């Protein structure tokens, strides 16, 4: 279970998140929507531990562990996964080498046995198939020259490899055509389960047709101003964010 309480964060002394309260129970899929600049991506990065942001108040607790006490790699090992909106390209290191190192580090932290080469490759094959990722891409540099769709599929593939307990998808739908969107959504849906929860951050309702959320939250100006069922996303789609921008926080 992920529990975010009264979270405040700023960048260069400018407050972005201004008191977020959000609880995601095991197995639930939540969606976070909101206009540009509302702080959606900031929340994703703060959850993953990006040091560019300063947490000024509040707490983040995952399965009883205080995430704010942990470095980004420890958070990953503890079960946090954030799919980047803009995955970085790292020339000179192959995807496979990077992933092998990441897997081994995470498993070591979780006190699991390291995978041998055979186990690793079988898992790669199985999980790549889930998101229809061409395994040839894994011999290329990390995200190097990947198309937009390949990058996003590679993110979900990594998510499948690392088996997190909370998956934060930061605008995974941006820049995807409908087919790629469907493939990515299928991959995510296959990963849904009783012990895994999701926070799907998106600007548009489109993705939520394929990844159907249990609860939808609307973020405006660094605060969640409204929460509701999946129909809230449709409502927003029809009426735009004007629906909530003038409103006052529901849970505040």
């Amino acid at each position, binding site marked *: 279970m992920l529990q975010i309480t009264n979270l405040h964060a700023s960048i260069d002394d400018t407050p972005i998140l201004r008191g977020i309260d959000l609880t995601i129970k095991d197995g639930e899929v939540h969606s976070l929507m909101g206009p540009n600049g509302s702080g959606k991506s900031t929340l994703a990065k703060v959850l*993953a*531990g*990006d*040091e*560019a942001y300063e947490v000024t108040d509040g707490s983040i607790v995952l399965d009883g562990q205080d995430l704010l006490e942990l*470095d*980004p*790699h420890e*958070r*990953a*090992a503890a079960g946090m996964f*954030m799919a*980047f909106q803009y*995955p*970085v390209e*790292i*020339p*000179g*290191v192959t995807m*496979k*080498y*990077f*992933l*092998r*190192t*990441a*897997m*081994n*580090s*995470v498993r*070591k*932290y979780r006190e699991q046995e390291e995978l041998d*080469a055979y186990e690793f490759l079988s898992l790669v094959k199985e999980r790549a198939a889930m998101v229809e990722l061409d395994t040839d891409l894994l011999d290329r*540099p*990390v995200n190097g020259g990947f198309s937009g769709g390949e990058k996003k599929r590679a993110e979900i593939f*990594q998510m499948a490899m*690392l088996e997190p307990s909370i998956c934060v998808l930061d605008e995974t739908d941006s820049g995807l055509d409908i087919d790629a969107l469907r493939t990515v959504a299928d991959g995510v849906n296959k990963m849904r389960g009783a012990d895994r929860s999701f926070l799907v951050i998106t600007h548009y309702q489109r993705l939520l047709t394929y990844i159907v959320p249990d609860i939808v939250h609307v973020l405006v100006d660094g605060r969640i101003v409204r929460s509701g069922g999946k129909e809230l996303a449709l409502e927003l789609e029809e009426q735009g964010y004007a629906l909530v921008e003038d409103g006052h926080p529901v849970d505040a």
Partner: protein
Amino acid sequence: MPTMTTDPASTVAQRLKDLPSDALSARREEALARYQDIQWPSMRDEAWRYTNTREIAATEFSGADSSATIDADAVAPYVLDADMPRIVFVDGIFQPDLSTATSRPGVHIDRLATVMADAPERLTDHLAAHADWSDDPACALSTAMLTDGVMVELDPGTRMDTPLHVMFLTRGGEAPISVHPRVLVVAGDETTGTVIESHVGLGGNTVLTTPVTELIAGDKVNLDHYRMVREGSNTWHLGDIALHQGAHSEVSSCLLAFDGPMIRTRMRATLAGEHGNAILHGLALGHGARHIENLLRVNHMVPNCRSRESFKHVLEDNSTAAFTGRIYVAEGAQKTDAVQTNRNLVLSPTARASARPQLEIYADDVKCTHGATTGELDQESLFYLQARGVPTAAARSMLVQAFAGEILDDVAPDSLRGQAQMLLRDRLPAAEHLAMVE
């Protein structure tokens, strides 16, 4: 100041007297005179602004014990591939029992000592004719002391089936020694080949090594050269690599500097025939108080040639690196296409990098670019790796692997590339977290 009882140059003169008199005697004596003349310059000398030779100048070096031998077991870890033909020297002494390379029709692999004695006419135009010893004490000393080494000669139209691995190991002794490894490659027209040098220090005795390699390529030659430097903890490595290329030739030389307190390399390519292509690559790792210096010069003497220089330095701790790259374009060498880059990754606040690009151009229709960058690790990339579970130190190391990868990926022989990748990994912090290189 240390008190000196003997002038090192006169010691060299004494050692030279003991060498056999042969066809090269005159050139050796000339080089000795030059060495005595220039001595080891101070850092006020422009060419030696970055490298302090005071300790070298104050050390008296002797030659190695001529009966030096070594167990095959001691060499084994440095062999790239058991099947790759090799020639092994220990402290400058040829090791017949450990060497496996043989000549075959069209591909002549010989000891320089043998050629000097039996067929010196094969050398006169080439040996010590391209590595310029007129202005450099290390190269002058190397030439003065030239007694042995390896000569590879390719008859026109021949192709080496496998790379040749020339291994120069140094062990030294209680007293400081100097060794002068030498490689000469004369590639006739339309030949193809690869020569790999390894310079390996076994232990911490004081050694001065001045390796000089000359690669002379005819027309339509495809030649690759690699120099791997893994010197001991008290070895000064001051080397030269000189390329001379004919028309339509593509010659590459790649320096991989991994170990040793001082690694200074002069690399020079002369494009003497049209449509030649010179590729000079280098990767150097700075650790501890290591000092790295690379001095490059590409001479575009004729039109329509291309040169590509890419040197990368990774600097940790108190290490320093200096890069000087001169592109010279002679009058009339139109359509020259020259690119030079020097990238420094500075990982510690006390490490230092300096770069001096120099263009000297006497033609008007040319494309010459140079770029030097000095930077730290990219924070966004670092966060990406961390967010996937890679601990900070290992993530940093992985980004160093990425930086170096752009040079190592171009190392063609699999066994050498694999060795270089492993050496790099083993020298990085948190190596135990990094996956093994496949």
